[in-house]
């Protein structure tokens, strides 16, 4: 997996780069928009991490230029604290996700993984059945079974589980859940999301020997057959 970081803040760049390298990725770094655009256009990357405010060429302009030349490498836009609400602009420019600095590395990693999986699955036919271990979700009949037993879910619980199953094996953060399931983009202040997740867990895990829905401490949740 190859990642390009276009970021002028050296500390942030080395923080991301170190983390991604530890996670086993190949990382390239450009510290201005012009070099970044050149690298992104000439090399093949699995994902881009682009800071909004860059010297020479602005981050959004980099993405816009790439998209105009039919380069659809998934891009995650980073922006400084307090510019939370420029996300619409960032997404309009062709960014695939948006993250506000300062962020936890785990959040960045979770979002990057989700991005890359989404782009990998983009060409495939839309799935009608999702499966994780013995948990099965039929999207057409809107039914969930585990181990052959039917599980009754509220509509929102169904959406929540669908989101988790689509990101099976990945860490999903609370903010990602609020965005993906409720379509709101602010920080969930308290444990509202956790309560929803623990309810869902009680329905899909309680009566079964192996738990599927795991809590990743300090980060979020992961739906997986292995703990």
């Amino acid at each position, binding site marked *: 997996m190859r990642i390009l970081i276009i970021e002028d803040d050296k500390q942030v760049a080395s923080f991301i780069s170190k983390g991604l390298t530890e996670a086993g990725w190949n990382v390239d770094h450009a510290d201005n928009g012009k070099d970044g655009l050149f690298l992104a256009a000439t090399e093949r990357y699995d994902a881009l991490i682009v800071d909004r405010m860059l010297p020479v060429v602005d981050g959004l302009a980099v993405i816009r230029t790439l998209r105009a030349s039919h380069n659809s490498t998934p891009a995650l836009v980073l922006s400084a604290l307090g510019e*939370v609400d420029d996300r619409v602009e960032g997404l309009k420019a062709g960014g695939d996700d948006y993250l506000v600095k*300062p962020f936890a590395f785990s959040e960045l990693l979770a979002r990057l993984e989700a991005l890359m999986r989404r782009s990998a699955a983009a060409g495939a036919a839309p799935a009608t059945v999702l499966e994780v271990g013995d948990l099965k979700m039929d999207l057409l009949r809107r039914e969930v079974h585990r181990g052959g037993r039917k599980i009754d879910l509220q509509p929102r619980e169904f959406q929540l589980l669908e989101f988790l199953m689509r990101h099976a094996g990945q860490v999903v953060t609370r903010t990602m859940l609020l965005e993906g399931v409720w379509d709101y983009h602010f920080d969930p202040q308290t444990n*509202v999301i956790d*309560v929803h997740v623990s309810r869902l867990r009680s329905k899909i895990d309680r009566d079964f020997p192996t738990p599927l829905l795991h809590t990743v401490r*300090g980060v979020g949740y992961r739906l997986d057959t292995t703990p």
Partner: protein
Amino acid sequence: MRLPALFRTTIFQLTLVYMALFGASVLALFTFIYWSTLGYLERQTEEIIEAEIRGLAEQAERRGLVGLADVIAERVRRDSERRSVYLLVDAALRPIAGNVTHWPERLDRRGEWVDFLKSDGDGGYTPVRALVLGVGPGFRLLVGRDVRELEQINEVFRRASVWGLGLTMGLSLLGGLLIGFSAQRRLAQINRTTRQIIAGNLSQRVPVTGAGDEHDELAENLNAMLDQIEKLMAGLRHVGDSVAHDLRSPLTRLRARLESLANEPAPSREDLEACVVQADALLATFNALLRIARIESGAYRSAFAPVDLGRIARDVCELYQAAADERGITLECDAPVDALVVGDRELLAQALTNLLDNAVKYTPDGGRIEVRVAATPRAYTLTVADSGPGIPESERERMLERFTRLDGSRSLPGNGLGLALVKAVAEQHDGRLALGDRRPGLVVELELPAAEPDAPSARTR
């Protein structure tokens, strides 16, 4: 070169304009009076001369030059007033008849009229206006009238005009300056106060005379503006102080913790994670502060669109339903569809999230929370009522400010910015936010103006 200060003032310029206008109108008035009195007398004199010369010309035609001479002699004799002037001369300007001894040496021509000075014989001269008519071969007849009186009146009038105009100008200059200087004094006072305020003395106020004139109005408006500025400054200072105060203690705690960890040979993972959690909490507070500041700056207003307040209420209630259930709290949501208000969906949702967050946090287990969206003629009222301890009336106003927390609530998580954000959101949406008593419990009412019916349809997502 710059004009001296006096000449640059508005009052001086206004005074000059005032003087010019006044002088011009007085001049016009005098001209009219002159024309209708002296002009009349002059025209009358000229009419008499014209009538006489017409009569004499007739006589000359009928009775020849000799007859004319006789008539002239006769008229001179009969002229008891001695105001008429006659003179008939031959081609060599020798007098033949009349009461003037010789043809005048200087004649001022004014069209067909001539003016000259007739010698009185005793060294004095009399101004005469006359007409000259050619009669017979080379003979000339001059008929005129003594216009001494006319000239005298003219002179009197001219003198009166000059004095009158001078007096008028003087008085208008004086009046203009008097009025101007009194205005100038008031303005100077305002300027003096303004300079003191610029120099940093914000408590200064422009004096109000109580006359109720436009200067008072200006002074009152300036004072109101200063009050507002002072209030804002105080608010700003308060926020600054609060930020410093409320962020200093957690920062100090974090620092102390890190320092003690630095001294340990192998710091534990739990301790380091606790530090991250503390730093995150600090960042969350900063984020909330920045977000409030950004909301207050009006940055979101440009993207306002009609949104369904009812749907937002149902969404957020649903988000909190699970958290309420867990504590045995009944969360009731009563919101109609299509409660359209003009605003930002995210901001309104976050405001309601903050309100529900508080409600769930402070309502005891087994309590009750009601969320209601109700239509009033021109607005929608969003109400969040809980059965918690409520907020004492004296504290309610203060609770909407940043970093205010009730004494009893300091042990619960929170940064004291929740209601401040709700207030900022309400203000940006031209809404009204009120805290009330539910006996027991708190009622928060957020009234938002309804969207115009012809506004573009709501964003549906």
